[in-house]
C-alpha cells in the first residue's frame, strides 16, 4: 500500500570504550512508510538517539544498511550525501544547546539555505524566513532576537523551522518535547502533527515518554540495550504488549486517572544493565520475571506473531 521510505538492515553501531565494546545499536531492522511516524521508545542508554543519528549518518555505522527509497545511503560519497541531507533533517532535544547562541533567529533559520545555496537573492531568503516562521508559529517580531532571549517552546519552534528550511521528506525528532513544560509540549506536538498532515513528512520520533509516543506514532519500536525487542502498530502495542519489557514499561507509566488506582502493578526489579559487552541472548534476561534458560545463548530474532507485530522473546516462538 504505502511505500517504504526508510529501512535499516542489521544496522550496528559499536563504540570502543576502555572497558570493552559498547553495543549502542545492535542488529536493528526497522522500516518507516512514507508519511507515517515510527515512535522509538526506550530508557536512557538504550541506543535510541544513536539509532537516529546513525540513520542520518551523523554517526557512521559499524555495519549494516540504511535504505532511503531503496538506496543504501551508507555507501554514498560526500557529494551524494550532501544532496541527500536536504531530504533528511533532525530536530534536537535540547533547544538551548542546538541553537548557535551568536546567531539571530533569522540567521539560524537561513543557515541551511546559505550552506546548500538553495536560494540566492536576499529577497527570496527573507521571504522564506517569514514563511517558515509563520508555519511554525513564531511571531515576526522575533526575527532578529537571539535564542537566549526566548523561552524553550519558541526555541524549539526555531529548531523546527531550521529543519524545515530545506524542504525535507524525513525528519528524525530526537526527544523534541522532553525539555518542555506540559502545556508547551502539547503545542509543539500539535505543530508537528499538523505539519505532517500538510506536508506529508515522515517522522522517526525518539522519546522515553510513552504517552507522547502513543499519541503521535503509527508504529512503535521498543528498544532495550541496543536491540529492538518489539515493533507493532501503536494501538496494538498498547492493547497487546507481548515482550515482558514492553509490559513492564507500560505498567510503569503513571497515568493521570484514578480509575486505575489500586490496580496491582507489575514492577520490574533491578536497573538497566550496561550495554558494554552485553550477554549473549536476551539482554532483558537479568530483570525479566519470566526468564528461562532458553533466553540465553543465541540471539533471539524478531518474529512476526500477529500481522505487523514483531517480538523478540522466546515465549512467543
Amino acid at each position: 500500500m504505502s511505500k517504504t521510505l526508510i529501512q535499516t538492515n542489521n544496522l550496528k553501531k559499536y563504540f570502543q570504550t576502555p572497558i570493552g565494546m559498547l553495543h549502542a545499536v545492535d542488529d536493528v531492522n526497522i522500516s518507516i512508510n512514507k508519511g507515517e511516524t515510527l515512535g522509538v521508545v526506550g530508557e536512557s542508554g538504550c541506543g535510541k538517539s544513536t539509532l537516529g543519528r546513525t540513520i542520518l549518518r551523523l554517526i557512521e555505522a559499524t555495519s549494516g544498511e540504511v535504505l532511503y527509497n531503496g538506496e543504501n545511503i551508507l555507501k554514498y560519497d560526500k557529494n551524494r550525501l550532501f544532496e541527500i541531507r536536504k531530504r533528511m533533517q533532525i530536530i534536537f532535544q535540547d533547544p538551548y544547546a542546538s541553537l548557535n547562541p551568536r546567531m539571530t533567529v533569522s540567521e539560524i533559520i537561513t543557515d541551511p539555505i546559505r550552506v546548500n545555496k538553495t536560494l540566492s537573492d536576499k529577497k527570496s531568503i527573507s521571504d522564506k524566513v517569514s514563511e517558515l516562521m509563520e508555519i511554525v508559529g513564531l511571531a515576526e517580531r522575533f526575527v532578529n532576537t537571539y535564542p537566549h532571549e526566548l523561552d524553550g517552546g519558541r526555541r524549539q519552534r526555531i529548531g523546527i523551522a531550521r529543519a524545515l528550511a530545506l524542504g525535507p521528506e524525513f525528519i528524525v525528532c530526537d526527544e523534541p518535547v522532553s525539555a518542555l513544560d506540559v502545556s508547551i509540549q502539547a503545542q509543539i506536538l500539535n505543530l508537528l502533527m499538523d505539519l505532517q498532515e500538510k506536508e506529508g513528512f515522515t517522522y522517526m520520533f525518539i522519546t522515553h515518554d510513552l504517552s507522547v509516543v502513543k499519541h503521535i506514532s503509527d508504529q512503535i519500536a521498543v528498544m532495550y540495550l541496543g536491540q529492538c525487542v518489539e515493533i507493532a502498530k501503536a494501538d496494538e502495542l498498547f492493547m497487546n504488549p507481548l515482550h515482558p519489557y514492553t509490559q513492564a514499561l507500560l505498567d510503569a507509566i503513571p497515568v493521570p486517572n484514578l480509575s486505575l488506582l489500586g490496580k496491582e502493578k507489575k514492577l520490574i526489579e533491578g536497573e538497566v544493565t550496561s550495554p558494554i559487552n552485553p550477554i549473549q541472548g536476551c539482554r532483558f534476561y537479568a530483570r525479566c520475571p519470566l526468564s528461562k534458560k532458553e533466553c540465553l545463548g543465541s540471539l533471539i530474532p524478531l518474529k512476526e506473531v500477529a500481522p505487523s507485530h514483531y517480538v523478540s522473546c522466546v515465549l512467543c516462538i
Partner: protein
Amino acid sequence: MIIEKSNQIKKKYKKRSQIYSIWLRFKRNKMAVAGLILLSILLTVAICAPLIVKYEHVIKQNLKIRFLPPGRDYWFGTDALGRDMFARIIWGARYSLSLGIGAVFISMSIGAVIGSVAGYYGGRIDSLIMRIIDVIMAIPGTLMAITIVAALGAGTVKLLIAMSISLIPTFSRVVRSIILSIREEEYIEAARSYGCKDRTIIMRHIWPNSLGPLIVQASLSMAQAVLTISSLSFIGLGVPAPTPEWGTILSENKVNMRDYSYLCTIPGFAILLSVIAMNLIGDGLRDALDPKLKN
C-alpha cells in the same frame, strides 16, 4: 502596501547589536569600567604623545638640572641626566603598551590557528601539536623570552618576536580547549546535519563562539606581556636606552632609587596602573561576553 508593511516590521524589529548588549552588561561592573577608563587614558596618552611633548625633550640631556624633584616646570622631576621624566613616561607608554598589544595580537593570531587545527581535528595532529606545546610550556614564559632575546640579541623588534613566541602556547591551549568544548555542542551537530563543511563550521559556528573567552584571555595576557616586557627591559634585554620604555626607565634609575625615590615609583606606578586596568577589563569582559547571561 504589503512591502511597505513588511519593511516597517523589519525596521521595528531591527537587530539589536550584540556589541551593545555586551556593553550594557559590561557597564554594570563598576571596577571594569574604571579599568576601561584608566586604559583609555593610558592609550590616549600613548597615541597623542607627540602632541603633548616633543620627542626631543625625552632624550635632551641637561646636566644643570639633574635630580629636580617633581614640580611646576617638570611635573615628574628630572633624572640623573637631567631629562624630563614626564616626557619619558608619556613616550614610554607608547613603547610599553604597543609592544604588549602587538605581542598579544601576533601570538593570538598564530595560536588561534594552531589551536583550531588541534582542537577540531583531534587525533594524531592534536597529539603532535600538543606535545610540542607541552615542551614549550615546560619552560617558564619569562625565561623563554630571555632565552630568545639572548639568542637574537636585544632590540625592540626582537623583543616583540620573543614575547610573541612565548605567548603562543598559552593561546593555542586556550583556543584548543574552547574548540573542544564547542565541538561537542549540539548546534555543531545540527550544522553538520544540513551539510555544513568543516571550514564553514569552524568559521561560522566555532570562531564566533570562541571569541568571547579568547578576548578575555587576550586582555589578561596583555597585562602579563606588559609586565614581562618591562622586566626584560629592566634586566637590559629589552628596549635599549635611551628609548623610554617603562622598564628601561626603571632600570636606568635603579641606582638612584635610594635618594630620589620618585624616579622609580613613577614608572613603577605607570606599569602597575596599566596592568591593573587590563586585568580589570579582562574580568569585566569575562562576565559581559557570555551570551547566555541575560541583561
